[in-house]
């Protein structure tokens, strides 16, 4: 079975997941992002790579930050951007996902940036286009269910490379709700592909998927133990609805065991960086002192995210 995100020449034509992508493709995205990083600092923040192209932001699930950064990235590439909040339109009228896609394709779309609550939804769209033989429309996954958030994974890698230069001697810890996290899955695939020798996941047993160790990570339940000697700490957002079921007793208790406080951060290396995909819950997964402290690179992540999304859009559109 051909990986649906690659074309016949093995080039990236859709970005659906980091899993299964060769190291070379990841590196070329990061290198391309490097070349776009300065565009935002110019007086005219635009390059003409996607001039005349129509990028549709299809958000079947709410998002502010990701949608905005995709929109900025597309506009800096000179594309026309159409934002569709599908929750409020066709899905409520009973139109199926693929009917929506066919209609937008008929409007001469060039790229779909898709966020969906169901794992695998962007695969369905990409495979549908592949089956129809449509090669000029590209799909970029902006987060699907618990499965993947590949541009977040790539911007996290960009951030790590920016601060740490080299992946091959790092220990990286991902902390919190791994079970429901598409960011965690994308980060794990990206880190292991780029050659990080030790990736750790830290969380209570209720928030770790069974068989997660088969993705090549070490599992820790004790945060102090898990953070010992790490170079990078990636904190995950804890959704408030997780407290409704039987996964966790309370946000306070979660904070006590798994909130990133200065004390716990002191177990990491002195020059460790702290990352968070946002939006943060201060006092739940991260203490404000840490979030605003000198080791946090959370706002630079957002800035880098634009360059990385520009890179992904220009590379997929070019293949």
């Amino acid at each position, binding site marked *: 079975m051909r990986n649906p995100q690659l074309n016949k020449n093995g080039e990236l034509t859709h970005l659906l997941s980091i899993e299964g992508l060769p190291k070379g493709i990841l590196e070329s995205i990061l290198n391309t992002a490097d070349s776009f990083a300065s565009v935002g600092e110019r007086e005219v923040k635009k390059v003409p790579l996607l001039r005349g192209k129509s990028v549709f932001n299809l958000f079947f699930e709410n998002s502010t930050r990701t949608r905005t950064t995709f929109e900025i990235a597309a506009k800096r590439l000179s594309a026309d951007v159409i934002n569709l909040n599908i929750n409020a339109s066709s899905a409520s009228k009973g139109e199926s996902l693929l009917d929506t896609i066919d209609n937008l394709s008929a409007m001469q779309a060039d790229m779909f940036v898709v966020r969906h609550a*169901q*794992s*695998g939804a962007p*695969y*369905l769209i990409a495979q549908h286009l592949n089956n129809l033989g449509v090669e000029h429309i590209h799909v970029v996954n902006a987060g699907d*269910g618990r499965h993947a958030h590949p541009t977040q994974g790539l911007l996290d890698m960009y951030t790590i490379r920016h601060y740490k230069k080299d992946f091959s001697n790092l220990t990286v810890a991902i902390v919190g709700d791994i079970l429901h996290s598409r960011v965690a*899955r994308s980060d794990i695939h990206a880190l292991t592909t780029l050659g990080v020798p030790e990736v750790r996941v830290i969380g209570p047993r209720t928030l770790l998927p069974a*068989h997660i160790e088969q993705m090549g990570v070490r599992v820790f339940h004790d945060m102090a133990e898990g953070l010992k000697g790490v170079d990078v700490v990636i904190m995950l957002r804890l959704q408030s609805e997780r407290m409704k079921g039987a996964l966790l007793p309370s946000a306070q208790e979660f904070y006590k065991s798994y909130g990133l406080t200065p004390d716990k951060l002191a177990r990491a290396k002195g020059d460790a960086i702290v990352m968070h995909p946002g939006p943060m819950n201060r006092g739940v997964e991260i203490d404000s002192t840490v979030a605003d402290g000198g080791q946090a690179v959370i706002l630079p992540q957002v800035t880098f995210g634009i360059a990385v999304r520009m890179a992904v859009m220009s590379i997929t559109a070019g293949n």
Partner: protein
Amino acid sequence: MNIAILNGRVVDPASALDRQADLFIVGEKIAAIGARPDGFTAEQTIDAKGLVVAPGLVDLCARLREPGNEFKNALATEMHAAVAGGITSLVCPPDTDPVLDEPGLVEMLRYRAKNLRGPRVFPAGALTIGLQGARLTEMAELRSHGCVAFSHADAPLIDTQVLYRALQYASTFDYPVILRPEDAHLAGDGVAHEGQIAARLGLSVIPIEAETIGLLRILELVRMTRARVHIARLSCARSIDLMRAAKSEGLPVTCDVAVHHAHLTEMDIGFFDARCRVVPPFRAQADRTAIRAGLADGTIDAICSDHAPVDDDSKQLPFGEAEPGVTSVELLLPLTLKWALEEGVELARALALITSRAAGVFGLSGGKLSVGGNADLVLFSADEYWRVSPESLTSQGKNTPFVGYELQGRVHHTLVAGTVVAGSRSASAAP
């Protein structure tokens, strides 16, 4: 009509018959196997040279989508598909719309089925009203209208008191009960096996324990009530072990698996292939191995198709939103043969799982060849290949993960009550 079926390899698992022989039909019955009866003149002769002549298949779980989908003409098409697959008797579960919980509905279904050329249809009545898990149906009444068993289909039966009373009541009259073991809360909104694939793809999970805890609860209640329970569609190794132990203890239980579970695992989901969205989910390699072993050693009594003709609109959705189920009546025979070939199981033993032993679960009359018995037959070529494609399937459901497979075992004729109801299919021959 008098039909002579000549030169076939007659295989009857129930009587351990497996030899070259002629078979003669008078009216609805088998008149002779072997020597031509005195005074017999054939009105139709079928040359069965190179074909296996076997009892028509008995499928313990096939959905005909009626009541509920009359406007799609589902009943006629699915019955046609069943006979195209060699099935001459089938049990349909009560999870129709409306649910088969009233004698009138059962009566209507049987009446409509009888007027179509197809398999004998044996409805399983609902165990509780509306499959709501609260009040018992009128089982005796339903039984008298033709329900062969009582089932809770895939609907949760959470209240153990209700399940206990349902089994106790059914056992009073020795009615068989069909239950698929699952702890509804543990299964939750899961869509995939709790294994490495679901962890990677970020799919919500159904752990093995959802099945084994459900199964243990049923087995304890069987021990209490001695009700005759058929455990439907097991999916994991530990369940097969539990069934083996329950049977050796002498509990009155039988079980089946869906034919696709003998072949596929969680790995087949690949890139979110919704055709692999089934209930229960495809599990790990070790589970598949245990199912195949359980079939070979007799722990598992039957293989069912678990047929569900899901249309494209309901399948071409993200994995978690896709309707579960696969089209399967036309694959029951070839997939059973595939398992048998791969495991070195002889033909008659394999066929028993979809004929005599399956019929035995509910005491159905079919599934065997006997002189004086119903002429329900399938004539198939055991080694002829055909390629599974949407076009090769009669069913309205075209979704199966086996599309593209080259399978051995092609049905040439199906007879129900001495009438040819499916002729040589026009399926594309192997290249």
